[in-house]
């Protein structure tokens, strides 16, 4: 399994507790549009992703991340640093 796939799986697992509507999760799934998360849910989710991967996703970076694929790529990059 590729490193990206393992990050995707871990991100997907973190999404599930917040995925109240059971939306199917792909790279293209958007947090605001598809998952319909409000800002409070996003905040809780980002904190759990940060702790899962021991990284910091600054609010500046969060502003650029709209879908799951972008988040997976950002996590991969941050872990390499």
């Amino acid at each position, binding site marked *: 399994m590729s490193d990206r796939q393992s990050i995707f799986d871990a991100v997907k697992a973190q999404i599930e507790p917040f995925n109240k509507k059971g939306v199917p999760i792909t790279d293209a799934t958007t947090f605001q549009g598809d998952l319909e998360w*409000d*800002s*409070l849910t996003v*905040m809780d989710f*980002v*904190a759990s992703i*940060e*702790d899962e991967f*021991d*990284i*910091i996703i*600054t*609010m*500046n970076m969060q502003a650029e991340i709209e879908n799951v694929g972008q988040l997976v790529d950002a996590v991969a990059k941050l872990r390499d640093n």
Partner: protein
Amino acid sequence: MTETGLQPETLDLDPAPVGPERDLMNKFDGLIGERQALLDSGVIDPFAIVMQQVTSPTEAVIDGRDTILLGTYNYMGMTFDPDVIAAGHAALDDFGSGTNGSRMLNGTFRDHMEVEQALRDFYGVTGAIVFSTGYMANLGMISTLVGKGEYVILDADSHASIYDGCKQGVAEIVRFRHNSVEDLDKRLGRLPTEAGKLVVLEGVYSMLGDVAPLKEMVAVAKKHGAMVLSDEAHSMGFYGPNGRGVYEAQGCEGDVDFVVGTFSKSVGTVGGFCVSNHPKFEAIRLACRAYIFTASLPPSVVATAAASIRKLMTADAKRAQLWKNAAHLHGGLKSLGFRLGTEQPDSAIVAVILDDQEQAVRMWQGLLVSGLYVNMARPPATPAGTFLLRCSLCAEHSDAQIARVIGMFEAVGKAVGAI
């Protein structure tokens, strides 16, 4: 005739109207609809209250009714203090109604200097800078202090002015879970050691009225080499031996680098400030856009603020009455079965947590027509999507007023099924 005057007339005197698809106001349709739905349900608009008369720090006339004010942040009841009012009158007479300019140019009058000295005396510090509002104090301090490649680390439940200070600046912004010392520690530990960092905290968080574990948080910040700014807007006047705030009450005066505060709560007028012992603090005046590019406060405002701050230094009886009032209200509402924002009366804010918007609005309206004004607060201002009726106490509330307030909460709470 100028060259411009000789140009052929090319101005389109009848431009095409902006098409509905490009109307910038369309983005507010959701808000307009939500507000209309609330009004259509027949309730009084909670965000359009007018005080027709204000008769004391604790009483006003709203819609023709005598109303007890329990949602004004007038913690120390200084708004009608005779010495404060006299200072304002004198400044109006002697210096006029406004300054017409920036602090940096023509907008610094005698009483701007006097109020900054009053702040230095009150806080026991070497530096004090006054801004036009508390909002601008946070906006200016955070955006100016923390530059590119540096970090602001803030509590998730921070006030909008702190978030907006972050947005206005160019620093990297990192959030930690509300009041979690462990979460702050973890996040600071993940940041580059060499980068400059500012941890922004609040002594009292105004939505639920909960107090920060500042002592532990400041210790963690210092362990990671970060500077600390504490917003003490909701604690000035009644925490700590000198009323300086939660940071004084918890004994971390030596480790908090910047304290931000406001004149619009305990001081009883309008304006904001930052105080500090940093030897280079005065440089903020030269760099801070929120300080430079706005008009300074009117002379009467800074004169009333100075008089009020000097009286707050020795307002022991008021402090005692305020804490007594907070305990009285908190205990009364708790024993009635209301769910409150804090287990104990930790601050001068008692937040009543309700089930949903409909219950909150009905409760709020029931209290208002009974003659009691409280703040209604809703997401996104509130944490965890809660609907709150927020009560803020005043040192001038009498025991009899608090007893009446508890009686109104009981009657209305039962009528709407909240208890």
